């Protein structure tokens, strides 16, 4: 039975220096799990994520990471991820080594990782400078036509962390809606931790939906609201107002540090995190 508390799951499966992918493309982003990693003061992580947005802004600003593999990093529709920017531009709170891709390249790298292939391939990176700054982007001649095709090395994180709608009592996980590259990231990883909105007796998953069977899941934790301020389709919507407000909170080092201190270090779990926000007048 892989069902655990989030604290136990992170303690057991996320270690200093690990390559960690918290995936979720705008939808189902495992924020509560990221906060628990901050709380447990993990260091020197190599964070992997196609879209390092608010969550990696928080984790990088809190000093958890010194490597970042990504393909787009910002606050979607709002602007910069200020903490990621400051880490890259000013090495604050510490230097951040970046390994940059396009979305298509990174998706191919997850597919290769999940398939245990030596590289992923795509017709991509045409005419761009990305291959100049990222030596991992190379090419191979097609054995049938001779065409040069771009290649990327596989991504095989030590641990992938996801948020999903449901798990059953055995630990089988079901997700639906925008599912990004989560299944690939899950199956590419050595360990898989999933937080869910609820644990049900039976999944009753529609055939062909995205189900991660319990035997590939290292731990499941029930964390309702664990994707906030992203969303969980069927449970709650994306908190666009908070994402807009984050721009101001994250712009200033001290204001950011105070936010992390009050809501992440100052709380013991996600429930207390939500209570602290509510106590300060954030409508949730």
């Amino acid at each position, binding site marked *: 039975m892989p069902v655990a508390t989030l604290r136990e799951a992170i303690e057991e499966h996320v270690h200093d220096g690990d390559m960690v992918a918290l995936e979720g493309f705008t939808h189902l982003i495992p924020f509560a799990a990221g906060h628990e990693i901050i709380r447990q003061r993990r260091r020197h992580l190599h964070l992997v994520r196609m879209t390092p947005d608010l969550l990696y802004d928080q984790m990088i600003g809190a000093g958890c990471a010194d490597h970042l593999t990504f393909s787009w990093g910002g606050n979607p529709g709002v602007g910069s991820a200020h903490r990621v920017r400051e880490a890259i531009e000013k090495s604050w709170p510490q230097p951040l080594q970046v390994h940059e891709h396009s979305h298509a390249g990174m998706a191919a790298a997850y597919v290769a990782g999940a398939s245990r292939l030596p590289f992923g391939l795509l017709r991509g990176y045409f005419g761009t400078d990305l291959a100049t700054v990222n030596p991992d982007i190379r090419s191979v001649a097609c054995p049938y036509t001779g065409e040069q095709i771009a290649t990327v090395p596989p991504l095989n994180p030590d641990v992938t962390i996801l948020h999903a709608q449901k798990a059953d009592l055995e630990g089988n996980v079901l997700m639906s809606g*925008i599912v990004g590259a989560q299944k690939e990231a899950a199956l590419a990883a050595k360990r898989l931790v999933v937080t869910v909105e609820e644990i049900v007796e039976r999944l009753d998953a529609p055939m062909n939906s995205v189900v991660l069977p319990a035997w590939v899941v290292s731990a499941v934790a029930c964390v309702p609201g664990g994707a906030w301020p992203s969303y969980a389709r069927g449970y709650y919507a994306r908190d666009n107002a908070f994402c807009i407000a984050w721009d101001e909170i994250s712009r200033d080092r001290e204001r950011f540090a105070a936010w992390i201190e009050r809501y992440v270090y100052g709380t013991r779990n996600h429930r207390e995190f939500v209570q602290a926000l509510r106590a300060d007048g954030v409508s949730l």
Partner: protein
Amino acid sequence: MMTVTAARMLWDRAVCFVGIGLPSAAANLARLLKAPDIVLIYESGTIGTRPNVLPLSIGDGELADTATCVVPLPEIFAYWLQAGRVDLGFLGAAQVDRFGNLNSTVIGPYDRPQTRLPGAGGAPEIALHAKQVYVIIKQSPRTFVPSLDFVSSAGFLGGNGERARRGAPGRGPQAIITDYGLMRPDPTTDEFVLVARYEHVTVAAAVAACGWPLRTGAAVEVIAPPTLEELEALRELHARTRAAHAVRVKLPI
């Protein structure tokens, strides 16, 4: 005006791969006004989406809930974009050069950035594989530059047919829509030239707001001002969007 101009250039049943911001606003305005069967694809995997309000992020629930289908990310890039199923890619950027190459990665040197931008995301492969690309970007000498700090997405590369010679499947950027008017590529040199301007803009002003010596087409047309219908539809769309983005979320705990 940019949004309306771009919306007018879209056509019904076009398969359109859309970025967030101005491209998304223009594509949805076109869908509401004149192209009810336009197929909008966002890189979050939502195909044939018909959002009632503009999404703030590329993966808002509104996009999934109103889509014909929702597919995983590796699939949207491989089976749909790379396979050549997209008629039109619609991109923004921080910088553009005279050959329609785009920078959305960094201002200044990559290793010591003056301003680190979000990065390329889906754009390099949209720019490569879409049958054609429209670029929508506000014009100033800082954005329309002689030389990009970083090439995130390829336009015509060095021009004079280089893109086609190097075997790019898509035809590349066919229009740059700005807040001064419209640029199109010269069919021989691939250099973007001013072909149309807004009524209130002079050619001299458009040239002055461009960081390369902007040439003009044989005749610079005047773009008709927005109609009442266009303006009302756009205002209503933005008003609905503002209201939706201000709604507070209720967590189930």
